[in-house]
């Protein structure tokens, strides 16, 4: 039925009216035919009943007085009725008495009804009536009536009705086709105007009204709607203009606000710069503090070495002062007194006799002395070399911050250990060095040193604070993930409480009596500057701590 929806309004009206008349005619013809068929049957039954009864009455005498000829004569009266094909009279006991056949043919089979009544058999109506005389049944009359004629008549009627129906449909079609214009024109015009309006947005046009019927009212309503739309359009236009003014005002306000905001942003930027400056200064201060730490370490080391050097010098001087060289001088003086009789003196004189032995002993003694002094001098030389190396190491780290170069981690760690060697020895701290194989990373050696110094110093103090035996510092270097390396400084010192773990990197936090709280903070900052990180962990107080420095193998593209 989809195709039907798209048909034009006029076509639909024509189709509807034609269809309606067709349906109505069909119903009329159908019902009439059915009614006719039923009526014809009823009439046939009634007529036949009457006919049979008349024959029955007329046959009473013939039946009573056994005169079938007379009865058959009566039956022959049925010849006037062309559709009665067979009639017969039977005795009460069923024996045939009189018989009438329209065409002379014999009935192929006996009638179904033995008792009075009627039935329809195929195209026939069979009527059976009793023959009653004076209240007593004396026989039966059967009549067979052909209904074919009735049906033929009905058929003819149907054909005529069909023809009439077709004609009516034709007339209905023509009429509706003719009349649909009056219905369709206003609708079509409305549709056209609606289309024009929707295309041109011109709400000033109005539809023409054709009458006072529903379509006229529809047209009126349509026009009224257009009027309302036009009014609303105008109101909308006005509102839009007002809106523009408001938008302009608001825009001006916003622009102003924006300007003040920009000023504020500029101020904030300045403040930020200042803050940054402050931060940098703070960093510098901390770095300088770190430098001071290194310097003090160096001085301390130098001091230590100098102490042992001065001891060596003092020992050498003491040995020299207490030397048995004077004995030699006495011996030589004694020998020179007896220069003439040296042989005699040695062989004869009591003193002379002891002289060779004395000399031998003296020589031995002096040789030992010389060796001891030489040893002290060597030690002194060592110490001086040590001091020289400390100073040169300090020089190698000083004043080269910000420069990256390939660094051998183990060397830097070795330097840090050297710086602390004296105190490690004094506090009997055992150092375990566990360095994995790796190419030297490229980084700021100075910063690395500072960080490591801080880390190792912290570990050292943690272990000293704990006291007791078996202080062990483990340095472990391993390649990390993604071109990074890991340096772990593991101690078995006092450890860090869980509360403090989160605070150890905070600026100004320290657990040492004389600490300034910048060490780990600046180390962590420097690690970040180098593109790495510094983290600490501990299983708790008394269980040691592990600090892990992670650094990129190549310097970060943007540091800071």
């Amino acid at each position: 039925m989809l195709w039907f929806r798209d048909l034009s309004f006029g076509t639909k009206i024509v189709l509807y009216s034609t269809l309606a008349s067709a349906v109505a005619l069909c119903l009329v013809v159908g019902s009439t035919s059915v009614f006719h068929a039923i009526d014809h049957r009823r009439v046939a039954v009634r007529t036949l009943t009457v006919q049979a009864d008349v024959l029955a009455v007329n046959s009473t005498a013939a039946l009573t007085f056994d005169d079938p000829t007379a009865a058959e004569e009566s039956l022959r009266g049925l010849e006037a009725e062309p559709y009665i094909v067979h009639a017969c009279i039977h005795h009460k006991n069923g024996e045939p008495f009189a018989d009438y056949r329209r065409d002379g043919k014999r009935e192929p089979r006996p009638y179904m009804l033995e008792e009075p009544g009627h039935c329809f058999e195929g195209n026939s109506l069979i009527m059976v009536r009793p023959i009653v005389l004076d209240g007593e049944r004396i026989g039966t009359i059967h009549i067979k009536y052909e209904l074919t004629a009735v049906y033929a008549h009905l058929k003819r009627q149907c054909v005529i009705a069909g023809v009439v129906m077709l004609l009516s449909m034709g007339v209905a079609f023509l009429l509706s086709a003719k009349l649909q214009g009056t219905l369709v024109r206003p609708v079509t015009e409305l549709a056209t105007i609606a289309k024009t309006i929707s295309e041109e947005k011109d709400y000033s046009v109005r539809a023409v009204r054709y009458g006072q019927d529903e379509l006229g009212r529809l047209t009126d309503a349509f026009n009224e709607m257009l009027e309302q739309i036009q009014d609303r359009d105008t109101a909308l236009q006005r509102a839009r203009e007002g809106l523009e003014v408001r938008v302009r005002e608001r825009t001006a306000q916003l622009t102003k606000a924006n300007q003040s905001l920009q000023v504020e942003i500029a101020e904030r930027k300045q403040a930020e710069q200042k803050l940054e400056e402050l931060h940098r200064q703070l960093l510098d201060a901390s770095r300088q503090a770190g430098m001071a730490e290194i310097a003090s370490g160096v001085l301390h080391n130098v001091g230590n070495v100098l102490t042992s050097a001065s001891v060596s010098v003092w020992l050498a001087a003491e040995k020299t002062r207490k030397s048995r060289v004077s004995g030699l001088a006495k011996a030589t003086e004694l020998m020179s007194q007896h220069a003439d009789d040296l042989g005699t003196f040695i062989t004869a004189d009591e003193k002379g006799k002891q002289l060779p032995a004395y000399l031998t002993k003296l020589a031995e003694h002096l040789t030992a002395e010389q060796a001891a002094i030489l040893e002290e001098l060597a030690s002194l030389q060592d110490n001086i070399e040590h001091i020289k190396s400390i100073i040169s190491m300090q020089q190698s780290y000083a004043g080269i911050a910000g420069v990256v170069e390939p660094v051998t981690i183990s060397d830097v760690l070795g330097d840090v250990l050297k710086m602390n060697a004296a105190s490690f020895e004094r506090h009997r701290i055992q150092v375990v060095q566990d360095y994995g194989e790796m190419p030297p990373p490229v980084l700021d050696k100075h910063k690395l040193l500072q960080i490591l110094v801080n880390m190792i110093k912290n570990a050292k103090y943690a272990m000293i604070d704990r006291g007791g035996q078996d202080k062990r510092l483990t340095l472990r270097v391993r390649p990390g993930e993604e071109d990074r390396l890991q340096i772990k400084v593991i101690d078995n010192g006092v450890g860090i409480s869980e509360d403090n773990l989160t605070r150890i990197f905070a600026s100004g936090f320290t657990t040492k009596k004389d600490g300034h709280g910048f060490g780990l903070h600046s180390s962590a900052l420097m690690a970040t500057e180098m593109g790495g990180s510094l983290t600490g962990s501990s299983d708790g107080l008394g269980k040691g701590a592990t600090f892990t420095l992670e650094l990129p193998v190549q310097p970060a593209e943007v540091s800071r």
Partner: protein
Amino acid sequence: MTLAHVQERSMRRGHIKLVLLIAAGVMPLLSRTAIPQVIDQGKAAKVKAAYIYNFGKFVTWPDTAFQDESAPVVIGVIGSQSFVDILDDTVRGKTVRGRKLLVKRVKFEKGKRVDGLRSCHILYISPSERDREHTILRALDKASVLTVGDEESFATNGGMIGLALREGRVVFYVNREAVKDAELKLSAKLLKLARLVRSHKRSKVST
């Protein structure tokens, strides 16, 4: 030809029909197989009795003929008592137009009152009274009595219905004049079956 010859004629041509007639009209309870092949004198009398009874159904008497609604139809017989008995058997338990039937033997003696005859509705005069039948009929004098006798001559002699056997079939002759004179009405259906005759001049019932 008398009814006594019915047997042989029936055997020859239409005895089945006769038997059926008896079965239908006279002895409805008698089955076909029970009917003997030989119809004797008694059977012929029964047929005659049935006819007489059935005529009653096709006759209309004037209202004055009955004393009241319940008055019976009286069938008088002038003749032997045996026929009276046969007729009595035939009509036993039957009615004509709602009236019961009463069979009685009547006697006719010349010069005596004929009230007994005139009070009948149907009067059968047996062939044995042939000699007197004319006198009897005259004595009735237009009384509303359906007179039934034998042979065509009965009707032509002023009787109303004469029974006879023709070609194996029972036929009856009707004298409409006599019927009309007695103010009786015979059904057209009956008349259709009847053979109509007129009274001989000599024997015409005169007033």
